[in-house]
């Protein structure tokens, strides 16, 4: 049995509320991610899925529990530069909003190059070659690679963000609603790109999403979160085709599709 690339154990996050008990955003969540696998974290706003993702990449300090990435303990954000860089080389994040996740003063190429300079001691030639390679991989042409973010469309910006994340050859890519704000036609392009990348590279995904159709498209297994807790887990197919927990069922029913009509939530089903 190979060792999982990410192992999370009883992870918990409380945010302090003045004069009241802390707000529990993530409540004893455990999971494992095998190499090459894609895991979905499903939930609506306030479910704790984004907090979970932020703890994984070191943007948030867990209140309790353990995060192990590639065999190393990464329960807290790195204090020293070396720790931060090491974590950064293993796990990367693609944000939801392609309009603000890039520095507006930095052309795409410079953004990717900065990432390479930070992590690897490449010669200028080697670095430029790698930047070209990455741009090609995510489908950015010469003009787009030299352009500032404001001259790029949402889909193109998200390609830049993906290239930046891939630059360090991470083992894990966390996709935090990475296609949620894109137009349908662009969303399909990015979803296909993500599928291609997984086929080419030795990489695992953690797909944080509220969109069950997206989850279906790019994940193998997953779990559903509600109010910080995992309410159901299993293979993606089982979760979507035969949901067991009432909340998963409600989520599934709420997705519009052919023949769908909106429903008022039945009283009592949802605690």
């Amino acid at each position, binding site marked *: 049995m190979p060792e999982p690339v990410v192992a999370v154990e009883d992870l918990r996050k409380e945010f302090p509320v003045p004069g009241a008990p802390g707000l529990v955003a993530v409540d004893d969540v455990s999971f494992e991610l095998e190499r090459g696998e894609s895991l979905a974290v499903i939930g609506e706003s306030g479910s704790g899925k984004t907090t979970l993702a932020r703890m994984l990449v070191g943007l948030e300090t867990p209140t309790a529990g353990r995060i192990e990435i590639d065999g190393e303990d990464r329960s807290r954000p790195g204090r020293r530069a070396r720790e931060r860089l090491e974590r950064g080389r293993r796990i990367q994040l693609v944000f939801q909003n392609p309009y603000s996740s890039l520095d507006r003063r930095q052309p795409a190429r410079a953004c990717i190059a900065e990432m390479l300079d930070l992590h690897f001691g490449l010669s200028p030639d080697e670095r430029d070659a790698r930047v070209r390679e990455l741009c090609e991989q995510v489908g950015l042409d010469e003009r787009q690679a030299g352009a500032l973010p404001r001259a790029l469309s949402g889909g193109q910006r998200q390609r830049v963000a993906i290239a930046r994340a891939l630059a360090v050859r991470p083992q894990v890519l966390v996709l935090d609603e990475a296609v949620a704000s894109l137009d349908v036609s*662009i969303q399909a392009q990015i979803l296909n790109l993500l599928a291609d990348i997984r086929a080419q590279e030795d990489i695992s995904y953690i797909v944080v999403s509220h969109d069950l159709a997206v989850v*279906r498209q790019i994940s193998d297994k997953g779990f559903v979160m509600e109010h910080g807790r995992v309410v159901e887990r299993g293979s993606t197919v089982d979760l979507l085709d035969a949901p067991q927990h009432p909340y998963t069922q409600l989520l599934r029913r709420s997705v519009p599709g052919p023949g769908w009509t909106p429903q008022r939530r039945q009283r009592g089903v949802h605690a």
Partner: protein
Amino acid sequence: MHGAATAGHREDGVTGPAPTPPAALLSIRALRVDLRAEGELRRVIHDVTLDVAEGESVGLVGESGSGKSMTARAVARLLPEGAVTGGEIVFDGEPVLTLRGAALRRFRRGGIATIFQDPAAHINPVRTIGDHLTEGLRLVRGVDAREAERRAAAMLGEVGIAGGERRLRQHPHELSGGMLQRVMIASVLLDEPRLILADEPTTALDVTTQSEVMALLSELSRERRLAMLYITHDLELAAGVCDRTAVMYAGAVMEVQRSAALNDGPLNPYTAALLAARPRVDARSDRLEAIAGRPRSAFEAPEGCVFADRCPHVEDACVAERQELRPLAGGLVRCRRAEELRGRLGHA
């Protein structure tokens, strides 16, 4: 109220006949909108033609930049300053685009009420929920304060908000997004419109809340026999709640159809491409059929068919000339090859 005024609708010959009965409550004909940006006029809508009949709900679907929201703003007469319009919008027999002053106010209080995407921004944050709900009744209809409050509290109950009296005294920031959208719906219903203009009313909400709010909206508008123009980027959502659905691209209506028929028999290649590009919740496809390129706005669309540069079925003739919206199979379509492609589009 306005009784038989709807009968006076005339065909202006700009486009082909609509598939709905002529007694449309709202009739948009060859609408064109240019916005002033950096000192130049920029086209955002180049041809929207659409009817909404009394009591009917029509979806208007499009990606960003398609002009769907601008269409809504044109109908509600909320276009930004300096906008130049062409074509015609007729509501209840009266041309809307030329209304001014008192006539414009009469049109607004009598006929169309708008539900916006972001209720937190569209409700005055420093006034109470009660102020917002009763404003239309008190200031526009002259209902006295106590009666207005009573009706407002009752309406809150109808949209599923308990404790109406107490809620009236709360401020918007004390309510969640889903709650605020219900307040918005309540305020719109209190104004007793004949047509509801819903501009992405659930986009900012969670899916489960979306489902509830949409159920509420269609139930209540059906009960009251209100017409609805429902604007969204979500084709399946529109199809789920509307009788007919219109699909927009680059400032033009590409197709109008009965919602039930849309999924299996799209008439326009763009609609078909949109349907195919969306990942499905009930089945995984090996590879999504993405549409190359990115959505265009009206001012950057190709010379000929606006979808020509992304269409998989494009021919030389498509690039040469702009297409008109014409009737086909009980719907309307804007595509040279529509007859030829019919049956070949959609789920293969």
